[in-house]
């Protein structure tokens, strides 16, 4: 392992590996990525893999549109199949509140050029998913260019591409301390020794809080468990990710045929907990069987838990850290880090490299939480 580098990236999830890749691509190849466990062992490898552009604020929608653009050419750029599929997202509305919000969302999204439309329940079953049970569904929004990809393959593709450009990837190497001196970052201390570096990026999801703390930085991130299950593989019979904010549910059929889906339990207590619960298994199966009755005869093969790193406005914390020069944050993705990873990583890499980013991300700096009230995007599961 190197003892000196230009930049250390902490965290081998999709965003960390992508930042390493974009830094190296921009010429900063003297980077080390350190990961406490294996690649995508955290939130990335536990997520549903959806890539959605339907958001309720202009900034988020813009970022998501740009990310889909990056994702669509990523297999080619990284020279590895990431199972990118533009199967669309079908967002179901069940309540008056849903309907009012979705109408506003669609107006905003269409204004930004997104191919999104409102469908009646009949149009849903006639045109998109005949197998869906539309009982109680008021309407849906459908964006056919929304997508999905395989989080493991995407992370590995970024890591391999970064390695090819000269980045060193050190696995099973937990960071014990971020080193600082007189308001500047000087490197990281790991289980395998110290790496001196003038630039350090903290991309460790729920672990970002204790890691930032070692440099005296407090991040307003709360970990919450979310759970997912996956079924046996079946021949493809539906394309879109189907989600409902009011039911808190999402599910899709992945490339090899399994249906993967999860829901957010509103009563989930805060805290780091990656265990599985039987309640989730029974509740989620009931929701799936309700939404798509033909899934009743399908066997569930696995379930698991993963962490959301939730911020007060459910938006990520990106960019430099006030008080510790050279220390950057890319965390607090609040459950939608995978879907915006390519564009966000590219922008963060630009900031780290001292360039002006293509899109202004200063609104997502941690200092927003000390400057006044924040607005929450409502399109979060």
């Amino acid at each position, binding site marked *: 392992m190197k003892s000196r580098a230009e930049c250390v990236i902490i965290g081998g999830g999709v965003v960390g590996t992508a930042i390493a890749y974009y830094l190296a691509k921009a010429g900063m190849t003297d980077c080390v990525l350190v990961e406490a466990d294996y690649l995508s062992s955290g939130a990335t490898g536990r997520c549903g893999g959806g890539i959605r552009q339907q958001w309720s604020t202009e900034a988020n929608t813009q970022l998501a549109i740009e990310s889909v653009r990056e994702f669509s050419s990523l297999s080619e750029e990284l020279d590895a199949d990431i199972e990118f599929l533009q199967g669309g997202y079908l967002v179901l509305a069940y309540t008056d509140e849903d309907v009012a919000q979705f109408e506003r969302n669609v107006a905003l999204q269409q204004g930004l050029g997104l191919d999104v439309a409102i469908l009646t329940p009949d149009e849903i079953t006639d045109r998109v998913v005949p197998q869906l049970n539309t009982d109680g569904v008021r309407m849906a929004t459908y964006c056919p260019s929304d997508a999905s990809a395989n989080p493991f393959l995407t992370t590995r593709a970024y890591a391999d591409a970064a390695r090819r450009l000269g980045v060193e990837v050190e696995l099973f190497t937990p960071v014990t301390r971020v080193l600082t001196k007189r308001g500047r970052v000087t490197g990281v201390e790991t289980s395998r020794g110290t790496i001196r570096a003038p630039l350090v990026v903290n991309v460790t999801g729920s672990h970002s809080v204790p890691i930032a703390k070692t440099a005296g930085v407090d991040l307003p991130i709360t970990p919450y468990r979310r759970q997912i299950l996956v079924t046996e593989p079946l*021949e493809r*019979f539906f394309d879109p990710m189907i989600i409902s904010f009011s039911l808190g549910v999402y599910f899709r059929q992945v490339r090899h045929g399994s249906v993967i889906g999860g829901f957010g339990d509103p009563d989930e207590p805060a805290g780091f907990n990656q265990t599985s619960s*039987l309640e989730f298994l*029974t509740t989620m199966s009931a929701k799936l069987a309700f939404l798509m009755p033909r899934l009743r*005869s399908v066997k569930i093969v696995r379930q698991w838990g993963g962490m959301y790193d939730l911020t007060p406005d459910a938006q990520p914390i990106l960019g430099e850290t006030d008080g510790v020069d050279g220390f950057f944050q890319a965390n607090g993705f609040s459950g939608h880090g995978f879907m915006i990873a390519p564009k966000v990583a590219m922008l963060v890499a630009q900031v780290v490299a001292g360039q002006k980013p293509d899109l202004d991300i200063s609104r997502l700096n941690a200092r927003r939480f000390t400057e006044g009230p924040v607005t929450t995007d409502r399109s979060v599961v």
Partner: protein
Amino acid sequence: MRITEHPILKFEKGPLVEFEHDGRKLKGHEGESIAAALHAAGVRVLRHSIKLDRPRGFFCAIGRCSSCLMTVDGVPNVMTCVTALSAGMRIETQTGKGIIPDVHFPTPPTDPDYPRDLGNVPLAIVGAGPAGLSAAIAAGQLGVRSVVIDENPVPGGQLIKQTHMFFGSKEHHARVRGIDIGAILVKEIEDLPVDCLTGTTVLGLYPGRMLALLRNGRLHRLTADSVILATGASENMLAFPNSDLPGVYGAGAVQTLMNVDGVAPGKRVLMIGAGNIGLIVSYQLLQAGVEVAAVVEGLPEFGGYHVHAAKIRRAGVPIMTSHTVLRALGTDRVEGAVISKIDGDWRPIEGTEVELDVDTICLAVGLTPNCELASQFGCDEAYVAELGGRVAIHDASLETTVPGVHIAGDASGIEEASTAMLEGRLAGLSAAAKFLHDREMGELTRLRSEAEEGLRALRAGPFGKHARAGKRKMLALASARGGDS
């Protein structure tokens, strides 16, 4: 292909019923596995693989390998080796991943008692094989109530397939056939505070020592103060060209087919592996009237007991050491096999190939402990080659790193049924300790040392070499983690 005469076994079968296979009417016995009924009717190809469309047949016979997935009454991916046949079933060869039927599933009435709550038991034991049943007996004799859970339709584990007599001393059921030992253990639990839930799969262990059970297609839950994992082992596979052809079976599957279902696996068998399982199953094949072409063994010496080797040699079966199988022949089923001599580095020696005319290849190439539940429950694990693979780290009282969770039998390291029974006993006694009064501790200590002494005796001698080494490593690992060993 049904075995009509057997020197030891009698097959009690359900009534003959008609079912449909790919549009053809066939007959089988109600209650036997679909895969066994099809095998008896001469059907070898059960599905085609997802990626390469390769024919797949019967392989493990215990619902583990997915080689036998078929479409049954319109539902794809049904494990036909563990699904009972009933009259009028519509069974189809599955190609690809399976398509879920486009039928109207009515919304079931809401069930407030879902999953069904089976309450709390002092001791839950997963697996009703020799280890699990012995654990239940040991705890039960001390008055500790237990529930034994097993996915198979009858208790006894692999004992129900063993027609040979066991060795050892009298208290370890020496000179009794495996099938009869199983029956003895089952009889013993009848008079004890033990409930046996067969046909019940433990889907998972959840926090609070809650077990999720699948029983009669319904989810149940059960919490336990202590858990013993006696989940046994799975068979190892051997990679060689065409090793996935129908007609290549695990030794356990061959035992299930011929000794439980009464169906001959084929006419002429090549046995791979001359450890005890390979030798014993070869003899069982001869008992069932099946020809054994040869037993091949990669090592220069065979690993099993000489008594077993002598029995099959007397019947004219060659045991070919320093040999391996190069490939299976055939397109839709095994039609032959090529074996060859190997050198000291396990490389085939050119010019020594021999083609054998066989229709079945039986793999007896070792077992791997079933560690899934322990793993899922967060027990620390370690790979210990002498124990057969990844095993939950356990101390001398067979407790894992999760307090209240014990492990016994093949799941704690591959040995054989006699040691499994004693380990089960020891785990049962250890798990019972917390329910006993202080005045009963003396008796408990005595019983535990008796079981430990028995294990030492069984593991003495050259055949216990691996087990001794493996268990030594395990104790070192446990004490490094602050175990009480």
